[in-house]
């Protein structure tokens, strides 16, 4: 199978244009194939007779696979170039070179047979679906990637020219050369840190559930408070209380064991530079809402200045993220790698809410709460119960 285009890794045989036993001319079309890009023809390498085809219409074959054999019968078939110092009278094996049947022996040479037939892929994929891509990495690849700080995910779009479509070192070096021609800026250390955390968190099966929460009770409570807690703090306190009632939902799965939280320490996301920091309020279940306001504000300030003290970061068991401040109504946040839960609070919107008693739609301020969780530790039911409890607490702020 010839290389019928840059980055083409395989082609599907559409039709065999001649039959075994037929005479063909050099350059004559003998097999019609289709790639992701176009339909083309494979031509005969020489004048001769088709000995056999090894392929079938409808199946796909990788570049380089043997499609068949043609026996050269040209009258003046050139013998392979002889060097002055090459052994002359050794009978030679013939694989692809021309053979004079009367003079030379054709000893079948062992070469790898065509690999298992590949199902035609959906057109438009840069890397055929069943191929290895960057999944098999040679030692050289691994070393080079390690050197450059790259991972498999970074090579997701690279089409491989190796066996099974694997990315070879040549493909990789080509990719790097092309990369150098694009505009590159250095990612900040904050960005790299967040990327690393999210990458590591994503190795688990995560799921997200959501519930709308009515913010009116919260806002009323807030207007009567001094100092004024922010909505995120209400959510933080509610989450802390809900978890103190059943902390197993914030446990971590380590192997076949659940590690239970020791202390209800809750973190909350703060945007800082081009990334996110997560300051922590420790034992948030023991501190009434009012008593946390000052601490919360101080932590936000420290976070924005990137001056969080060490006691105020790390070792939290769950996180609050208030992306409503960015105008987002809902999202699927990703928990920190070492946590099972993250609770997201969307922007509040005035919406009509059906009042069954009065039989009318009434305007309320509502926001979506979404809970993303490690689905290995809890399922929809437990997540739903937790979210419902938080909801109940948030709509009865006097309990906080």
């Amino acid at each position, binding site marked *: 199978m010839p290389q019928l285009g840059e980055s083409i890794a395989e082609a599907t045989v559409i039709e065999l244009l001649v039959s075994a036993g037929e005479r063909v001319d050099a350059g004559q079309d003998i097999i019609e194939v289709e790639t992701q890009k176009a339909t083309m023809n494979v031509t005969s390498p020489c004048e001769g007779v088709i000995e056999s085809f090894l392929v079938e219409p409808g199946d796909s074959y990788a570049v380089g696979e043997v499609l068949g054999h043609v026996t050269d019968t040209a009258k003046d078939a050139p013998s392979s170039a002889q*060097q002055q*110092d090459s*052994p002359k009278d050794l009978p030679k*094996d013939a694989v692809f070179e021309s053979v004079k049947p009367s003079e030379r022996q054709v000893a079948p*040479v062992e*070469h790898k047979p065509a690999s298992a037939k590949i199902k035609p892929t959906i057109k438009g994929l840069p890397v055929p679906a069943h191929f290895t891509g960057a999944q098999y990495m040679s030692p*050289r*690849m691994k070393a080079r990637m390690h050197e450059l700080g790259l991972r498999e995910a970074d090579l997701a779009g690279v089409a491989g020219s*190796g066996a099974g479509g694997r990315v*070879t070192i040549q493909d990789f070096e080509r990719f790097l050369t092309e990369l150098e021609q694009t505009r590159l800026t250095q990612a900040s250390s904050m960005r790299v840190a967040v990327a690393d955390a999210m990458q590591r968190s994503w190795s688990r099966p995560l799921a997200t559930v959501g519930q709308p929460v009515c913010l009116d009770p919260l806002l009323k409570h807030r207007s009567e408070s001094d100092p004024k807690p922010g909505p995120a703090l209400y959510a933080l306190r509610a989450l802390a209380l809900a978890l103190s009632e059943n902390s197993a939902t914030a446990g971590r799965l380590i192997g076949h064991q659940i590690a239970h939280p020791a202390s209800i320490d809750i973190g909350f996301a703060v945007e800082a530079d081009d990334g996110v920091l997560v300051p922590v309020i420790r034992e948030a279940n023991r501190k009434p809402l009012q008593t946390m306001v000052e601490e919360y504000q101080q932590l936000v300030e420290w976070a924005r200045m990137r001056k969080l003290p060490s006691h105020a970061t790390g070792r939290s068991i769950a996180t609050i993220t208030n992306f409503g401040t960015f105008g987002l109504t809902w999202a699927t946040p990703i928990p920190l790698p070492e946590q099972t839960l993250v609770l997201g609070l969307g922007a509040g919107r005035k919406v009509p809410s059906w009042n069954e008693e009065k039989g009318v739609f009434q305007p309320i301020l509502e926001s979506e709460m979404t809970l993303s969780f490690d689905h290995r530790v809890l399922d929809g039911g437990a997540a739903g119960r937790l979210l419902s409890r938080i909801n109940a607490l948030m709509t009865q702020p006097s309990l906080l």
Partner: protein
Amino acid sequence: MSVTYLEAIREAQAYLLEHDSRVYIYGQDVGAFGGAFKATKNLAQRFPERVIDAPISEDAMIGSAVGAAIEGMRPIIEIQFADFSTVGFNQVVNQAATLFWRTETPCPITLRLPSGGTSGGGPFHSQCLESIYAHFPGLVVCTPATVEDAYSMLIESVTLDDPVIFCEHKYLYFHLKAPNLPKDALPIGKARIARAGRDCTIVTYSAMLHECLEAAEELSGEGIELEVVDLRTVKPMDTDTIIASVARTGRLLCAAEGWPWGGVNAEVISRVVAEGFNLLDAPPQRINAKDTPIPYHPKLWSVHRPAAASIIAAARNLLRS
């Protein structure tokens, strides 16, 4: 003017006999007859008393070489076929190879082993035994692939103060020619890049070099550039040159006429994997003679050991992986 591989060996011996009175040649039929392959033709006449016919006694031939070396001579023992050296194996590996280690007295003997296959040679006139001797500490093993190396490496072998197993290839004797004898040469222990390339490294030696070069020419027509490394010396092996080549190409194919188990190919691959693992973009491969004694019939022999076509196929497989 052109000189064959065999003539180069003869000229080297003539040079040695002329310039060093400690050198003598001892082997069957080497005297008036000039040797089974004429490697010593006319040397007995030119240097009487120093080109001596031996009885069919490889053990005594090699043992006596050790004794002569102890007394300060530089014997060259011509074993008629490498295959017969096993009769004197004990003297090589237990007497010659251990003398320096046990006594700090050097053993400057050179054993010339006409090695490798020719059409119709059969099981006992075709063997390549370099890996067997390389296995024993205390020996230097040379495998010249070119006319120039046959000349310069034989001279250097006899000049060395250690026992050298000089594996000269019988097929190359009359088939390989060069315009001149060399003026200078790479030393024993250094490999040579016989052909620079890019896509794959082939490590080889002796007659296989020429099969590899032929394979490389053919593949070059398809845009595949093989880099061919001629080991020249099997022990000590120039690992640095091999590793540097694999660093350039990422792929390694070893081609040798010897048998697979524990052969030179296995040793090369073992070293590259141990010292250059992160240079490899694909598993290293080897191509050897089949794991049977060497067949007599030319048709059987033609597929028994690697040749350009099978090397091409092996290289293609490697490049496809």
